[in-house]
């Protein structure tokens, strides 16, 4: 025998291999008849005992006001705090002196989904969303512009609340 072969101790004299096999076969046959617990994902998106957490931080969504304009006032806090540097913001100003984003783009590939942008936003405009179906056919489709961010309809994340650390 080669050097260093680890010999497993097995309770050989106390077991019957044939009966153990039959027991195993009974077990697998019981499972054969059991109802399946698989969720058929693309058709079925929620199942008993399965839900996506409200604190989930997924792709972003920009909330809009009653006129359908983005709530963003281009204060520049989110690109400043963003640790991944994935938010591109060019501010603009209309005749009345209201600031608004001329360009607002988020590169979802660079984003680390920390949720700081939502936390820091004074206008509750930018949010991370409770959303996970992000497949695209081209890489550049992952840079979400303002129009696209406003058009998202999925739920927004509640983020982590220090007063309720376990989400209860």
């Amino acid at each position, binding site marked *: 025998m080669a050097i260093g072969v680890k010999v497993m101790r097995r309770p*050989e*004299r106390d077991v019957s291999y044939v*009966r153990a096999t039959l027991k195993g*076969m009974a077990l697998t046959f019981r*499972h054969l008849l059991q109802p399946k617990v698989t969720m058929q994902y693309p058709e079925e998106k929620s199942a008993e005992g399965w839900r996506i957490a409200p604190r989930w931080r997924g792709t972003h969504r920009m909330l809009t006001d009653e006129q359908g304009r983005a709530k963003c006032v281009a204060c520049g806090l989110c690109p400043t705090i963003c640790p991944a540097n994935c938010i591109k913001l060019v501010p603009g100003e209309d005749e009345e002196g209201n600031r608004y984003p001329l360009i607002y783009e988020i590169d979802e590939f660079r984003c680390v989904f920390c949720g700081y942008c939502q936390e820091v936003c004074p206008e509750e405009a930018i949010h991370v969303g409770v959303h996970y179906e992000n497949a695209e056919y081209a890489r550049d489709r992952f840079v979400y512009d303002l129009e696209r961010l406003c058009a998202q309809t999925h739920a927004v994340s509640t983020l982590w609340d220090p007063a309720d650390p376990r989400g209860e």
Partner: protein
Amino acid sequence: MTPELKGFLLFSVLKMLVVFTAIMVTVALLTLMERKVSAWMQDRHGPNRVGPGGLLQPVADGIKNFIKEETLPGFAHRWLFLLAPALAFIPAATVIAVIPWGAPLPLDVDFTLGPLGRFTYRGALPLAIADLPIGFLFVVAITSLGVYGISVAGWSSNSKFSLLGGLRASAQLISYEVCMGLSLVPVLMLSGNVALGEIIGAQQAGLWYVGPLFLSFFVFLVSGFAETNRLPFDLPEAESELVAGYHSEYSAMKFSLFFIAEYANIVTVSAMVTTLFFGGWDIPFTRWDEQGGALQTLATHVAFLLKVLFWVFFVMWIRWTLPRFRYDQLMALGWRFLIELATVYLVVMAVAIHVVERVLGLAEPRVAALVYTGLNVALGYAVFFVIDRGLIIRGSRQQAERAGRAPARPPRVPVEV
């Protein structure tokens, strides 16, 4: 050519076409069945995307395998590498020729086919392609040729994993060939014939041989698993140690041929278990199926297929229940247990048959079969409940103990939970 010869040839060719096509389709469906059964046993659904309930999955797999790239490793032995899949597939396909798929079909036809002339066939048409008088000897002989495909594939790939797989396959198949042959000798003694039709007839007169020859059945089944390289004995491909064993270097249809051969072998083993130990096409508790006739042929055919289907399911059931044996355990089981068991059993049954037939003179086959069944129940109890205490599979522990390396077994202490 006489019309009789032409009729015989015509029906033989027809049977070949039908059986070969049916086997190929069955093999494709068996891959689906394997995946479904494994999924159900693991509380999953299995393939269910292609076609209704996943029924077209084999078609998708087939198309995929046809359009995949055929790789030919530069370091491989070109001709043997190309030959090996065929060497594996041909014996698997050949053995199917002798399987009796149903009761003989009574035929009385006489017709003319244009320029081919007159065809006649009178009498019972056996539902085996070739109703060979050497019966299961042919099966044992040809299945043992299957090892060439695997070991040639392993050697010609010129890769260490393939080579190890091929070596294991040769050792394993040769070892279990012995058990398989020995386990079939009692069948020969009891039925007095090797032809499959005669064996089925003997079982119809007496009992199915699973009762009178239970231990033979057990040994045959276990060595059948080993012969088809199915889990728990799939050491030649053992993916956790050998990548994919002997077919590591194969791709596309060449790989598929190994797969088809494996499933064809499963069908063969299931059909042999059915024929030799479960009455073949016999329908139990009735003599109606022995009268002969088209309807009887159809019914017995369905009965045979159902039995084969059960054993195919059984093979899959075992596969998804038991883990793979270690290589020394596999060899220990074959050489230290099954061969001894088969040999001792052979002697015991020979004595029993002599006593029952010559000394006691029991002529009625049912009564004699019941006596053998009683004997087998006692033997089975002795083997599975008395001897089977760590003796069927002896691991390397004994060797280690002998070498004084492993400490003696510690006393068993009850653990408080």
